[in-house]
């Protein structure tokens, strides 16, 4: 009966089947061949699937949720999407004998296109594939625009689907919500999610609304909504992450830690959630739980892309704070091979080893380690501010005061507005009995950025966009790793261009600043709005230039 079937041409499509049972793999192959899908590759494990996807361009991936040992189907899906190995146009169909999977899918940030419960027959497989492929067809332009970051076209495309395909009405609304959030139109997203909730309060619409409120910094409202969501849908993991964000934004760090702790209890899989839990516990000076979470982040992250050198630095830092230098050293020795694979890993290994040496009063070794670390950093190894503070600490302890001052000045310049980091610096110097040095370093390094920012803001307030933007540009040169300063500057420049037109490549500056901010703080709530503002002004400027060319005066 599915008349639609004739529109799907399976002969041209390529599929990958991932299942740990050889007999299931061949059963799938036979079923797919029965409706003309003959270009089919097979994989038995998640790692094998990753290899296959790297070299083959698949239209359809059919994957069993339970893949025996190693990663499961959901983790495979998350890794493929996270590494951008498959895009929105690739069909991912999950197959499962576990009725629990529906809960997993409801809880997952990344859902497959559909899922199929075993046992099922080949005809049902075809019906589902028909439906997904036809939907993909309808969304193709929207998905392409979104992938090319042409968000305005993606938005317009969603509206067309909402108008013309009643069947995909809700899917199009859901995607439009994502587009609006990516554009920074949080009020638009709020209105949209309220529209969906009026139809039916499905969990994703409630979560979307809470996110839109959070991004508008209406934290108490967002918190109330999320507390209600986790009560009604305790399995919806994404809501714990968002609730923790909302609580952090209100400085409710203990509550945030508890929230993430519950999230980890519901789904123990995500190393990223564990890492955040560890960071919060550490910040709350709850070293036992910080240790547990960081250790789990490393264990869960092994053999996946989610493990970072910084995870080892985090855990080692906890051990050092517990006065357990031996355990810190042990982390580096037992992971030496892995850490030597990247400059970041080498940096972490050198810093932790130097910290351990400094604690054991092996100052010569500590100094040698720090010199190596500073070389690695100079040659471009990415260094989180927390790790840079570890370097400051090691230098102070090893008597390398000049190097410590230089490192601290750099961190402080880029974090003049972060009390947590500046307080840590004070503590480090106090513990080393060098408290008199620290205020001088902090004062000198932050004074210029702070002053330039202040003066720039004042000029903007008075309506002097040009000079205000110039001041802020100087500030962002000083604090080139402070996303807030970069975004403030970009905003001022965009206002200026809006008012006076583009001159001296101001738009180029704004673009560079926003790119740098996106690298440093990809999830900052202001970023998407500024990027949209940039695109809008860019096309206005281009249109003006074109008009001037056509009608020379």
């Amino acid at each position, binding site marked *: 009966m599915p008349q639609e079937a004739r529109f799907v041409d399976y002969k041209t499509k390529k599929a990958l089947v991932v299942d740990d049972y050889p007999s*299931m793999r061949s059963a799938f192959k036979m079923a797919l061949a029965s409706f003309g899908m003959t270009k089919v590759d097979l994989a038995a494990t998640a790692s094998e699937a990753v290899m296959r996807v790297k070299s083959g361009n698949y239209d359809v991936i059919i994957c069993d949720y339970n893949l025996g040992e190693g990663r499961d189907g959901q983790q495979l899906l998350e890794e493929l999407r996270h590494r951008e190995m498959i895009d929105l146009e690739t069909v991912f169909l999950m197959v499962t004998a576990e009725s629990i999977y529906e809960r997993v899918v409801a809880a997952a940030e990344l859902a497959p296109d559909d899922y199929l419960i075993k046992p099922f027959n080949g005809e049902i497989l075809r019906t589902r594939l028909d439906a997904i492929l036809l939907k993909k067809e309808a969304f193709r332009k929207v998905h392409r625009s979104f992938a090319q970051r042409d968000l305005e076209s993606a938005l317009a495309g969603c509206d067309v689907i909402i108008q013309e395909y009643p069947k995909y009405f809700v899917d199009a609304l859901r995607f439009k919500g994502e587009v609006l959030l990516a554009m920074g139109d949080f009020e638009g997203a709020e209105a949209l999610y309220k529209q969906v909730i009026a139809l039916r309060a499905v969990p994703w619409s409630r979560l979307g609304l809470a996110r839109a409120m959070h991004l508008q910094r209406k934290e108490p409202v967002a918190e109330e909504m999320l507390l209600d969501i986790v009560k009604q849908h305790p399995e919806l993991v994404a809501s714990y992450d968002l609730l923790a964000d909302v609580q952090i934004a209100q400085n409710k760090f203990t509550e945030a830690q508890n929230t993430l702790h519950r999230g980890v209890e519901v789904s123990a899989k995500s190393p990223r959630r564990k890492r955040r839990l560890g960071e919060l516990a550490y910040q709350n000076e709850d070293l036992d739980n910080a240790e547990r979470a960081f250790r789990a982040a490393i264990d869960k992250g092994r053999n996946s892309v989610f493990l970072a050198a910084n995870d080892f630095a985090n855990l080692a830092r906890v051990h050092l704070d517990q006065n357990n230098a031996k355990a810190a050293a042990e982390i580096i020795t037992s992971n030496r091979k892995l850490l030597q694979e990247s400059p970041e890993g080498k940096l972490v290994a050198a810093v932790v080893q130097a910290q351990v040496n400094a604690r054991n009063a092996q100052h010569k070794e500590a100094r040698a380690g720090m010199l190596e670390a500073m070389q690695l950093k100079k040659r471009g190894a990415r260094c989180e501010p927390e790790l840079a503070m570890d370097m400051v600490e090691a230098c102070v302890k090893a008597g390398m005061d000049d190097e410590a001052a230089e490192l601290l000045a750099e961190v402080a310049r880029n974090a003049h507005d972060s009390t947590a980091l500046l307080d840590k610096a004070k503590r480090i110097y106090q513990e080393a009995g060098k408290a008199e040095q620290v205020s001088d370093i902090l004062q000198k390094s932050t004074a210029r950025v702070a002053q330039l920012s202040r003066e720039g803001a004042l000029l903007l307030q008075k309506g002097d966009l040009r000079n205000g933007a110039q001041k802020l540009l100087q500030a962002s040169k000083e604090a080139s790793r402070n996303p807030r300063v970069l975004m403030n500057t970009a905003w001022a420049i965009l206002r200026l261009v809006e008012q006076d037109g583009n001159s001296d490549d101001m738009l180029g500056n704004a673009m560079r600043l926003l790119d740098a901010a996106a690298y440093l703080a990809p999830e900052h709530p202001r970023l998407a709005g500024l990027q949209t503002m940039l695109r809008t002004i860019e096309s206005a400027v281009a249109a003006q230039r074109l008009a001037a060319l056509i009608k020379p005066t």
Partner: protein
Amino acid sequence: MSVMEQQDLYAALLHEMKNHLVLMAITLDRVPHVGDAGHDQPLDEVRLLCQRASERLMQALFIYKNDQGGALLNAVDAYSTEDFLSEMAVQARSLRAQLKVDTELADNVPAIWFFDRNMLEMALMNALHNSVAYARERIRISARVEEGMLCIAIEDDSEGYPEHILQAVAEDKPLSSSGTGLGLRFSSLIAKSHVNNGRTGMLRLSNRDGAVFEIRVP
């Protein structure tokens, strides 16, 4: 062993048996038809039995879960009613190839409706299995909107339901005497788990040209 532990043990047993049966059904699916009734017919019968047995166990597990206070529905979302009907028709045809299966979508049915697709499908499969077993030659699967509810009906040309079953469902009495009531109880639970705007879904049985099994979701 406490009552709780005993119940957990039974639940674990049900779960394990269900998984074995699912594997068995998948394995049977790999035996192809050969065009010989002496081979194909018993194969179909055994597949159907296997599917029914695993579904029964799954339903028993859900009823157990419901008795423990757990929520029955996992994933209420927007689904295409048309796709849902054609999927049910595909299921019916795969169970008995000689059967005539029609679908009918009333004009007043919107393109999408909110429901838990897999649970509703399981609830309807009960009726489908019955109809496949008892229908003379045809089954009709239809959808319409009545009093603001989506009504999905499965009708056949069988003898119809016996009076005591019609009465028990109409009076909403739990049926349990012979085991045949388990499926109906499950279907009724799933229907009633669908709530929207203060309205609750329901199961309705009647006889017309044969048995009529209807689930209404608000």
